[in-house]
C-alpha cells in the first residue's frame, strides 16, 4: 500500500471480526489505478456525506440494450481513475454452478479489461463485473462471447432468469429448475437483450416451497415447486427420531401451521388435505419426510421490491403445472403475459402493479386463464358487488 493513500474513515471498516471489502480493494489498489481512485472517491463520499456517482444511460455493446450499466464519477478531474466505472452483468449459469476453469477464464477476461472487482452475485443473479471504461466494453463482450458467455439483462427487459440449485444438490426439488431456467433464457433471448417492455420483468424458479431464490417476493413471475399428492413418510425413520430424543411433538407437530399432523406413539399421521406445503416438517425431519411423488410447480406473479411503488408479494395464477420439457405450456403462458403487458402496461409500471390497477379478473381474461379459488389472496373488502353478467343473462 502506497503511503499517500490516506483513507482513515475506510480504514475503520477493516476493524472488527468480519471480512471487509476495504481490505480487498486495498489488495488490488497497487496494481489497479482504478481501484485506488475508487477508494479515494469513497473516502471523500464518507467525509462529505454524499455520493459522487453519475448514472450513465447510453453505454452498451452493439445490438444489446441490457447488460451494461453506465457509471461516471462526478469528480473526474480529482479521481481520473474512476471517471468511467461501468458495470457489466454476466449471465450466470443455472444454479450458479461454476468449474474452477470457468472462474479462471472469467477472471482473466476481467483482469485484462476492467478493475478486477466482482460481485458474486447481484440481486438479480448475474455475476457482476464492477468498473471499466467505455472503450473496454466491446473488447470485454467479444472475449466473453468467444468463450460462450453472454451478458445478462438490465433496463426494461427480461432480467436474467435465476433458479435454486434444484435437483443437482437438493432432494426437495419438485422439478428441474436448472433445465427450465436454461430453456427460458434461450427461448426468450430477444426479450433478454433487447428491451421491449414497460419495465423490468424477473423470472425466478424455486424447486420447492422453501423458495431459496425468494421467487414469492422478488420476481414478477415465480415458479415454485410443489406436489399434489401426500408427503412421503418413512415411519421407521420417524421412530428413530423419537428414539433419539428429538421432540417431534414440540418441534414439528405443534408448529404445523394448520395443525394437520399428530404423533401417535412413534407414528406420525398427516392429514394431507389440510397441508399447506410450508415445508417445516420436511425441513426438520428430512430423513423421515419428503415431498410427494406427483410433482410440478405453482406459478405466482406480481412480486417486487419497493422502487417506484411499494413492495408486493406474488399471487398464485396457476396452482399446479407439470414442468417438463419442452416447456411449451410455460412458453405459451409467458407469451400471453408479455402480450397483455405490452398492451395494457404503463411506463415504469411492474406487471404486479398493472394487474392491481386493471384488476385480476381482467388480467385473467386477457391471458386466457380461468379464475380459481387459489387465486384469492384476501376476502373482498368492497361491499358493493355487481353481478352484471347475471343481470344480462336474465
Amino acid at each position, binding site marked *: 500500500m502506497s503511503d499517500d493513500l490516506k483513507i482513515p474513515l475506510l480504514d475503520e471498516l477493516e476493524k472488527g471480526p468480519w471480512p471487509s471489502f476495504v481490505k480487498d480493494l486495498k489488495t488490488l489498489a497497487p496494481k489497479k489505478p482504478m481501484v485506488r481512485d475508487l477508494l479515494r472517491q469513497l473516502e471523500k463520499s464518507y467525509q462529505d456525506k454524499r455520493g459522487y456517482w453519475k448514472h450513465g444511460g447510453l453505454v*452498451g455493446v452493439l445490438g444489446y440494450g441490457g447488460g451494461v450499466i453506465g457509471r461516471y464519477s462526478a469528480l473526474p478531474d480529482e479521481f481520473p481513475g474512476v471517471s468511467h466505472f461501468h458495470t457489466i452483468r454476466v449471465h450466470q449459469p443455472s444454479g450458479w454452478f461454476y468449474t474452477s476453469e470457468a472462474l479462471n477464464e472469467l477472471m482473466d477476461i476481467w483482469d485484462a479489461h476492467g478493475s478486477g472487482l466482482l460481485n458474486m452475485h447481484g440481486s438479480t443473479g448475474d455475476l457482476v463485473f464492477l468498473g471499466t471504461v467505455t472503450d473496454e466494453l466491446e473488447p470485454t463482450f467479444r472475449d466473453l462471447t468467444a468463450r460462450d458467455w453472454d451478458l445478462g439483462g438490465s*433496463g426494461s427487459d427480461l432480467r436474467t432468469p435465476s433458479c435454486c440449485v434444484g435437483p443437482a444438490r437438493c432432494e426437495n426439488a419438485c422439478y428441474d429448475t436448472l433445465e427450465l431456467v436454461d430453456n427460458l433464457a434461450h427461448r426468450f433471448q*430477444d426479450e433478454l437483450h*433487447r428491451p*421491449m417492455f414497460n419495465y423490468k420483468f424477473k423470472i425466478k424458479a424455486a424447486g420447492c416451497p422453501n423458495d431459496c431464490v425468494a421467487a414469492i417476493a422478488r420476481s414478477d413471475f415465480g415458479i415454485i415447486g410443489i406436489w399434489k399428492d401426500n408427503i412421503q413418510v418413512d415411519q421407521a425413520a420417524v421412530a428413530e427420531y423419537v428414539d433419539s430424543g428429538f421432540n417431534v411433538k414440540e418441534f414439528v407437530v405443534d408448529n404445523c401451521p394448520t395443525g394437520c399432523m399428530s404423533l401417535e406413539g412413534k407414528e406420525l399421521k398427516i392429514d394431507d388435505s389440510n397441508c399447506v406445503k410450508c415445508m417445516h416438517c420436511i425441513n426438520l425431519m428430512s430423513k423421515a419426510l419428503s415431498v410427494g411423488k406427483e410433482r410440478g410447480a405453482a406459478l405466482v406473479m406480481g412480486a417486487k421490491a419497493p422502487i417506484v411503488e411499494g413492495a408486493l408479494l406474488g399471487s398464485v395464477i396457476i396452482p399446479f403445472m407439470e414442468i417438463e420439457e419442452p416447456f411449451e405450456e410455460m412458453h405459451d403462458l409467458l407469451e400471453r403475459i408479455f402480450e397483455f403487458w*405490452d398492451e395494457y402496461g404503463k411506463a*415504469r409500471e411492474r406487471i404486479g402493479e398493472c394487474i392491481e390497477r386493471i384488476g385480476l379478473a381482467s388480467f385473467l381474461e386477457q391471458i386466457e386463464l380461468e379464475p380459481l379459488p387459489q387465486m384469492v389472496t384476501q376476502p373482498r373488502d368492497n361491499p358493493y358487488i355487481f353481478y352484471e353478467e347475471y343481470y344480462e343473462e336474465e
Partner: protein
Amino acid sequence: MAGEISVEQLADEMYGVVAENAGMKKMKAGDLTKAMIAKFGDQVSKQDCKSAIKLLIDSGRCVYGYYGGSSIELPRTEGAAN
C-alpha cells in the same frame, strides 16, 4: 395485411420518429410499435416492428438508452461522460 410494408421501410419510418422526438421525448420500443401500427394499420404486425427495431439497432443507426426506463435513441456522447 401484415407484411405489406418491408422491414427496411419500417426501420426508416421508426428512425424518423426517433429523430423527430430527439431531445424532447424518449421513445420506447412499444411507442415505436404503436406509432407504426397507428400509421400503417394492419399492413404491419408487432413482429414486423420487432424486426425493424432489431435492424435499426444492429445497423448502429439507433442505440438503446436507459433513463428510468429503456428507450431507443440516436447515438451520441452522453452528458454524464463529460
